[in-house]
């Protein structure tokens, strides 16, 4: 009943998924999860299943779209890709992220 505690700052997973889809193109859920794991290495402690709630949220917002396709194990599975609105959103979020990063970095430096 209680909200699941996240290991990532809120919204980070969304950003990772959208960035992955931007670089890699259309992918299914498993491949997205694997790709995020590979890129982040050991830095990220994330159960793979956690991307599904994020995916439905992004889909409902209209930033990614899903279509049914066939997996490498010959099963029906959803393939996700970024929409036009998603690209715009990603760009805006990356900018916001960088700004916040820069601000925090400056602040930490100054505090030193």
């Amino acid at each position, binding site marked *: 009943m209680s909200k699941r505690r996240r290991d990532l700052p809120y919204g980070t997973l969304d950003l990772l998924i959208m960035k992955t889809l931007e670089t890699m193109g259309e992918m299914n*859920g498993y491949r997205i999860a694997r790709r995020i794991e590979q890129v982040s290495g050991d830095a990220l402690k994330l159960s793979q*299943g956690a991307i*599904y709630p994020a995916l*439905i949220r992004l889909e409902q917002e209209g930033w990614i779209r899903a279509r049914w396709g066939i*997996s490498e194990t010959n099963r*029906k*599975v959803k393939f996700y890709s970024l929409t036009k609105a998603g690209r715009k959103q990603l760009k805006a979020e990356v900018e916001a992220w960088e700004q916040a990063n820069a601000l925090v970095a400056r602040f930490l430096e100054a505090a030193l």
Partner: protein
Amino acid sequence: MRWRAPIQRLLALVRRRRLDLELEAEIEAHLEMAERDARQAGLSAEEARWEARRRFGGIEQIKEEHRDQRSVRWVETRAREFRYALRTLSRTPGFTAMAVLTLAIGIGATAAVFSLIQGVLLTPPPYKEPGQLVLISSDRTDGQQQESPRPWPAAQWLEWQREVKSLQSIAAYGWAFNFLILPDGVESFEAMLVTREYFSVVGLEPVLGRKFLPSDTAPSATPVCIIGYELWQRRFGGNPNILGQTVRVSRQDAPFEIVGVMPPGVRFLPAPNAAREPNYDVNALVDIWLPIAPGPNPEALKRPQWSIVGRLAPGFTREQAQAELALITARQAQADRDFAGFAPKVQSLTSEYNRDGERILLPLFEAAALVLLIACGNVAALLFVRGLGRQQEYAVRAALGIGRAQLFCEVCIESLLLALVGGALGAGLAVLAVRAFKLIGGHTVPRLDAVTTGWPVLLFGLGLALIAAILAGLFPAWRASRLDPNEVLKGAGPRATAGRGERRLLQIVTMAQAALTLVLLVGAGLLIRTMINIWKAPSGYKTSHILAMTVTAVEGNWSDFHRRALDRVSTLPGVQSIAFAWGVPLTGNNWTAHVIIEGQPAPATQNEAPQVPLRSVTPGYFELLGIPLIEGRDFRSSDDDSAPQVVVVNSAFADRYFSGTTALGKKVWLFGPDKAPGTIVGVVANSRTDDLTRQASPEIYLSFWQARAYSKHLLIRTEADPLSIASAVHTALREINPYAAVEHIKTFDQIRNDSLASRRFAMQLLVGFAVVGCLLTLVGIYAVLSLSVASRRHEIAIRITVGAEYRDIRNLIFFDGFRLIAGGVAAGLGGALVLSRALRSFLYEVEPSDPATLVAVAIMFTGVALLACWAPVQRATRMDPMKILRC
């Protein structure tokens, strides 16, 4: 894109099942791919499956989060609780039916009266911005009641039209009654006489044709009329080519050309000067509009019979208009003594329009609301008692970690569900009730014919359901959420008992119910006493076995028709006696004269002589109605135009003007000192002719053959059921004269009942409400006392073992019940003293605070309520103490 996600989420509620399946498929595919990758990395089949699952995380947790993420969680939870409540309620059909029915009765009663209020009071007349319309009459400046409306606004309105700034426009109108002569018979109609300005003042546009033009009232113009939508439909079949056709109207030489048709639903504006006309019905739909034609004399527009309506100028209030008119009048009063002592009265049309309706509907609405409150009390008690039975369940769930808020919500939703079903059922009941009201209500509630039941009633019913849910559900819900699981679970087994404090609270609810019921019963009692008082009041005439109808011969020789009619109808089988009369009791009479009476001081002008109502009757009328002749003689058929004028007076007249001497042979001048006087030849006993609740006042009767009445009643005393000869009479009259309008065929008993209809309607409804409220309260008392017995059974068992007698136990419980009832009765008497005042205008010879009624109702209710204690008392005295104490 902001709206996109919320919509998707709502959609997800509906697609719940499909989305779940889709997610499951995705997860399975995910695990399969992960497993394959792990195998390829060199793990065994078993290890690979385990590794895939480990890295995926908790599957159920993910599914739950997915659900939360994609949809509106609040709605899903409530929906689940709703389903849960539905299941719980359907498991206890008896309880559910009881609660739903109780609520349905309360909601139904209230919604039914509301739909009357909605149709009668809240539906504005079909004028443009009716709130801006005002009626202008006059008022005495010394604050006293005026005997009859002073007509001077009519004398002034033309000047006002020019001068007054607070009124945009002003028009004069009047009421008229006449007969249409159509090819297939004669039909009476009510018409509005209006000045040219009228339609633009009230804002009526014809649906067909045009309004009146200045040329319509020129002396040489062809007479024109505008007809009402309903007459157009009824008499002319909605003929679209009606314009230009002519209709003949009795007593008018030239036929009227129809130039327009008005929209449906237009009723009369109050015309106080015509209020006592026998056929005046302010709530009727207007059949015909005729222009007030001044003819060669423009002063005709100022005749005192006109009433005045105006429209406030934008930005002005009724008070400002009143002040402005008062100023002008005060100025005129200095010049003209006629205006002195009077001030204009500016009334809002809508408040005048609604006055009769409010008088009857608001008290009834109050009564219905009381029934609803009583019903809510019962349902609260039911829910509460049921909550006691489920304490264990609540406690277990609370111990398992269910939140207080959720328990609270659950119980609330249960009562909401009950109330919604009750509300829907109640709205259905309301529709039936409104039909019944229309059936028994008749003319008692103005414009009842326009009442319809539709969405507003259903919505109102559901709104009431929400209120009822809150009233009935809040306390039980609060209690369920406040349970201490430790305390409950420590107690043994499921119990249906309540603690002292809770019992007290329930007792207060029941006392409140008893109090409300008493208020209803007192209201019903007062109205019943009123009806009995009226029944016992000496009317002065007999009403049984009399058939009455209005008969008007619009063409042909007047006295020939009436003499032949009397001859012909009196020979019909079953007819005992027969008479024509203008001014039959209880049918209205506006015919009066200022009478100069022999032996009384001569008044300065005729207008200062006493005003006395006149009636015109044929010989045998008094005998037919059973009005005894005290002195002198009845009229004779020879008392006609060729004989000297004779009159009969009632004993109130004789007592007032000739006390100590005989009235016989004295002279009265009815039509001025220069006209021939009438000689009093008889004195008849008093009778209540205007209203059964009003003492007789002085009256004068004229001989029918000397005082011709155009529209009048034919009264027939019959041997058997009066209505059985109605059609024979009708045929006979039409044979004598095909242009005889025979209308309003009723028994005299019906006329009598109709005159009491609004009182009877109020009484019937109030008695109905009181009985329902009473039953509900009895159920409530029974339930509370039963609970009390169950809760105290240990105590009672101990009392029995230590030697308490049957009588002691009986008294113990009876006393409990009596305290409950007595508390309710005491509070109810207080409430009744306040609320019964709303009924004042319906009461006759009984005060709203009538002690006899209050005491009688209190004793009766206490007696009946103690009967409701009987079963619980029996249960208490039949307990087996050993069985109770052992467990």
